[in-house]
């Protein structure tokens, strides 16, 4: 009788296990592809919409399939979800083969060890590291380590301005922070504000916390990789950015709820004369503004401060280490970073080339392209290439969103409060790193 009981129990247990096994990994089609003929590719939202990305990428993926016989399953993922999706993929091991990452995450993701290191062999397979611009390649991972990503599209921040509105007010494009503020003040009138910020987006806020601090000569992490967010230079930098809304009052308070392309629409519609954005040309043009109607200059530093206008922003391409089709994945990376594909994609997305000797073709007038390339090459300082960089973005960026909320709802934020908030962020980063 006991034997019968045991067998019955064992049979039921086996059944339960079998059903449970059915429910798990088989969902990812790429992992068990026959003969490595399929790749899964997660693309970021680079164009004006997810559909636009798909439209632009699909013909290229077709070309790749014709060349190599490898079919690429494309999924375009919005920026709000991409980091979480990558995290989940890293955690569960159910990952795509190739993925786009924001290049500021490169060293953070590198430290997870879930991505394929681009060692010499891998580099050779994708066409050699010499083909990339140095500034672009620097964003591929922490210095002194084998990178786990390769540059795909380049971007920089710039100050975009409406030429007609500037001419009407008799203004010249600003060269310093002070000129920018005075121009914005002159243009702030009758319900119109001089400058539009993406103050609801934590990553944009974090980027400008970095830029303004860097202009002050402040570092976000010390030599040991410990966060130093609460230092004087960072506090002053954050305050300078907040003051655009707070004391200068040239930014519309409700910009605090702008976390996507809404500001660009208003800029293109002529409702706001200036906007800060990272190579947003294609979005502006898509909104119907003509190329000759607007100009772009570097995000200006205060007189006497360091001349830093941006960081080499952009999107990198990473291969997951556990891909079943390493050769195919590397072939795909080679294809995506080949000069032919790069030209086609950069043209459509309005992004900067990451290859040596390539010219941006997305703008009718090369003048703007030259400005942006100059910023990329000479006025950019990379965001800290440390593992905790993404935590800087999330903690400080969100803290700044809160500070903006306070300003927008009418209360004042002084230096002490900023320092307190930054100290909190610093402790949070230290707690999870240590």
């Amino acid at each position, binding site marked *: 009788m006991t034997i019968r009981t045991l067998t019955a129990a064992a049979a039921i247990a086996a059944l339960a296990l079998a059903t449970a096994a059915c429910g798990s990994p088989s969902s990812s089609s790429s992992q068990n592809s026959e003969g490595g003929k399929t790749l899964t590719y997660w693309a970021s939202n680079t164009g004006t919409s997810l559909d636009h990305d798909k439209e632009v990428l699909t013909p290229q993926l077709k070309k790749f399939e014709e060349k190599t016989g490898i079919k690429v399953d494309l999924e375009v993922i919005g920026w709000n979800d991409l980091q979480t999706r990558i995290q989940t993929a890293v955690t569960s091991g159910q990952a795509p083969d190739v993925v786009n990452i924001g290049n500021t995450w490169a060293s953070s993701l590198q430290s997870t060890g879930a991505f394929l290191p681009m060692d010499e062999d891998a580099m050779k397979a994708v066409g050699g590291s010499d083909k990339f611009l140095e500034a672009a390649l620097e964003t591929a991972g922490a210095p002194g380590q084998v990178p786990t990503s390769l540059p795909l599209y380049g971007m920089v921040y710039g100050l975009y301005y409406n030429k007609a509105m500037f001419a009407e007010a008799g203004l010249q494009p600003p060269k310093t922070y002070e000129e920018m503020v005075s121009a914005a003040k002159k243009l702030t009138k009758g319900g119109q504000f001089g400058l539009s910020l993406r103050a609801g987006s934590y990553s944009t806020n974090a980027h400008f916390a970095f830029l303004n601090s860097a202009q002050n000569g402040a570092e976000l992490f010390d030599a040991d990789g410990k966060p130093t967010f609460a230092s004087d230079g960072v506090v002053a930098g954050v305050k300078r950015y907040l003051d655009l809304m707070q004391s200068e009052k040239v930014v519309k308070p409700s910009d605090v709820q702008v976390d996507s392309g809404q500001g660009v629409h208003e800029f293109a519609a002529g409702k706001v004369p200036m906007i800060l954005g990272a190579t947003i040309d294609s979005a502006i043009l898509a909104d119907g503004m003509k190329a000759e109607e607007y100009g772009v200059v570097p995000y200006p530093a205060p007189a006497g401060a360091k001349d830093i206008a941006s960081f080499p922003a952009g999107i990198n391409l990473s291969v997951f280490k556990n891909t079943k089709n390493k050769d195919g994945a590397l072939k795909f990376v080679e294809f995506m970073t080949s000069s032919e594909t790069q030209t086609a994609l950069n043209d459509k997305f309005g992004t900067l080339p990451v290859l040596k000797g390539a010219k941006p073709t997305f703008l009718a007038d090369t003048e703007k392209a030259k400005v942006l390339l100059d910023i990329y090459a000479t006025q950019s300082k990379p965001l800290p290439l440390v593992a905790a960089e993404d935590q800087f973005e999330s903690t400080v960026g*969100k803290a700044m969103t809160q500070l903006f909320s*306070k300003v927008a709802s009418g209360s004042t934020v002084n230096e002490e409060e900023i320092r307190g908030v930054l100290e909190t962020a610093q402790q*949070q980063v230290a707690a999870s790193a240590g």
Partner: protein
Amino acid sequence: MSVTTVEPPAQKPTVRPQRKNRRPKSSGWWMPYALLAPAVMFVLAIQVLPMVIGICMSFIKLTKAFIANWGSAPAAGLANYSITVDFNSAVGKSLLSSFFVTCGFTVLVVGLSWMLGMAAAVVLQKQFWGRGFIRTLFLIPYALPVYAGIIAWKFMFQKDTGAINHFLFDNLHVGGEKPFWLIGDSSFVAMLIVAIWRLWPFAFLMLMAGLQSIPSEVYEASAVDGAKPWRQWRSITLPMLKPVNVVLILVMFLWTFNDFNTPYVLFGNSQPPAGDLIAFHIYNASFLTWNFGLGAAMSVLLLLFLLLVTGIYLIVVNRRSRRA
């Protein structure tokens, strides 16, 4: 043999019940267990296993350096917990404030939802024209997909373009500046409104069902004795609904305390401190900083707290009902 055959009759009365108890055991007693086993195993797999894994996670240093290979994560001992409950540090302090926000939120949401549900259920108890329509209408928020419902509220709460500010300031001409609803302190109110809007139909539904089981004779008898509606409600409806209320309030408490959807959809990536509910806070703590060990420790503490509250609640309620 003969001895044994003789003796039993004397002991028959005591032996027989034993045999009767044993008889079902002797053949196929295991059948119910075997039939239950798959269910038990699934419960273990679905409910208990993740819980155990979560508890294990809270004792290791599961940061992003180890996330790709959990096995290599070093043991953290109680470090995750000590960070969590160190209320002088940034992490502990923000967790504590999130906890208080959640407590206030839960009390208000459960209380107001219950009151609304009770009022509506009692009013709709009487037969009148259009009752069915109104009942259906009241249940709509509960039937709507969560995401769709909350995102609609999110649009309505926008400062410059939202319907609520438009209604208050452009139609009713309330003076002053249009407020932000989704940032700053007013976000608590916004979250409260949405949560009540979603929860009260459930209270209404449960209480309405409970009211059906109260015989109308009781009301008639009390009316003969001169009881007014308020007295009827207090002395008849409320006590007779007690079993429903006990479960209803417990369930609503647990749901609301663990509410994730409302703040997540309403505030997206930038949660204001006033809208920082604890489930959302834990999600942010673990996903933003990739520190899943810390998040797990917070979750375990939350679990213990909810178990404690539920336990105390059930003991108090049961003791009262036994005394009564």
